[in-house]
């Protein structure tokens, strides 16, 4: 795809907005449609687009396989860790009220944000990892 100038220019223009939109969906999920699952997929779609146009090696430069694997595990850890944190702060597992004892609803809000972040990290990293293993298989 290296000789398609229009595709290269347009995708380079689009990419920042795709990633920004993913972050918007991630952190605005409490107010509008959105959340970790969708944001993760959109974020990964940005990387997939980059890989389709500029090749897999370019994606591997931005997101090395090692780092992606780390992010996959970190997302799950963030989610489960929130549960453990609420237990340490005196609540039940994943009972976000405990995060802010004075204002339980604020605690809920924090909890949802953190948990959705964990979901988004895992989903995005898994999708990128799956794409790059499929694409990398052909030339190995």
């Amino acid at each position, binding site marked *: 795809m290296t000789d398609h100038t229009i595709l290269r220019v347009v995708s380079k223009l689009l990419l920042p907005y795709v990633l920004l939109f993913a972050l918007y969906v991630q952190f605005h999920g409490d*107010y*509008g*449609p959105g*959340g970790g*699952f969708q944001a*993760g*997929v959109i974020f990964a779609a940005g990387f997939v687009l980059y890989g389709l146009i500029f090749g897999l090696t370019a994606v591997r430069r931005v997101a090395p396989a090692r780092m992606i694997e780390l992010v996959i595990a970190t997302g799950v850890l963030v989610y489960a860790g929130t549960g453990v944190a609420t237990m340490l702060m005196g609540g039940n597992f994943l009972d976000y009220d405990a995060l802010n004892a004075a204002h339980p609803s604020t605690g809920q809000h924090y909890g949802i944000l953190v948990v959705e972040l964990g979901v988004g990290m895992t*989903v995005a990293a*898994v*999708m990128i990892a*799956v794409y790059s*293993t*499929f694409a990398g*298989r052909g030339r190995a």
Partner: protein
Amino acid sequence: MTETVLDTVLGLYNYWVVIFLMMTGFYIVIARGNLIKKVIGLNIFQASVFLFYITVGKVSGGTAPITAEGLEVYSNPLPSVLILTAIVVGVATTSVALSLVVRIREAYETIEEDEIYAQDEAR
């Protein structure tokens, strides 16, 4: 009598659309030997189940379940929650299925079911 039949049809058509799509996917899974087509059939089946859940959650005159001033009736958010996670899990399992197809192709040089059976029996 015709009135009630019409009511029944109008009231239940959503389930019938879903059943039609579901059976299309089912047919592909059992009638086609190509493994990629089977995965596509499973995907169609799966998406029809998603649609089924979402149609069950619809409430006439309701709006999307995002609370706001002046709105009284919301569609049921629970099916949305279930299906939201199911879609992403679905694509994750589909990717596992597709990678198995890739491995099968590498081992057998084919993705047609009958040829794989033939190779297995020839051994």
